[in-house]
């Protein structure tokens, strides 16, 4: 997960939970702008901003999601972790870029790793760069 806007975070939550429910092993690697969204502080300031290209759609989309009682993206990730094999990893280099410490990360983060761990986990599976 590279991106940091809500329109990218939501599909990550949906894919992770759908995959976990169906028995796929799921590894989520949050890096760059994605990483900035898995801090405890970021989760308190939801929803995250929407992509600039769709800015006008933002308020309407959030209102509709509330009407649908649609869960927040990180709630989907938490649920995915409850029902399946889901691990959430934070990128150590991005943490240093943004001055984020291990204790700043959300409780659902399992470990701090690097690109080699990500590639090792990804090998032979379905990899999505979002």
């Amino acid at each position: 997960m590279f991106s940091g806007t809500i329109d990218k975070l939501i599909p990550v939550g949906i894919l992770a939970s759908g995959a976990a429910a169906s028995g796929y092993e799921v590894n989520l690697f949050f890096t760059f702008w994605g990483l900035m969204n898995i801090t405890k502080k970021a989760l308190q300031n939801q929803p995250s901003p929407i992509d600039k290209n769709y800015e006008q759609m933002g308020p309407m989309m959030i209102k509709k999601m509330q009407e649908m009682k649609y869960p927040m993206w990180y709630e989907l990730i938490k649920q995915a972790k409850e029902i399946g094999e889901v691990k959430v990893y934070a990128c150590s280099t991005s943490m240093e870029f943004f001055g984020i410490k291990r204790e700043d990360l959300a409780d659902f983060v399992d470990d701090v790793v690097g690109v080699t761990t990500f590639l090792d986990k990804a090998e032979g599976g379905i990899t999505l760069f979002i």
Partner: protein
Amino acid sequence: MAEIKIAKTLDVRGMYCPGPVMETAKAIKEIGIGEVLEVLATDPAARPDIEAWARRTGQQILDIQQQEGVTRILIKRVK
């Protein structure tokens, strides 16, 4: 078709993808092997998605009916 005994009913009407599949995955663990779960859903994706979920997870779909916007799926827990 002989009467199927339903062990549990899961009502996910009004929930959207991936809600019905996630709740189905949770509910199937709450019944015994050989027992049947009834799922009621309004999400148009519920049917194809629960069919795909059953293929992936090795559970058996006994029956699917669609009536007035509600899909009723009977799933037998086989493992």
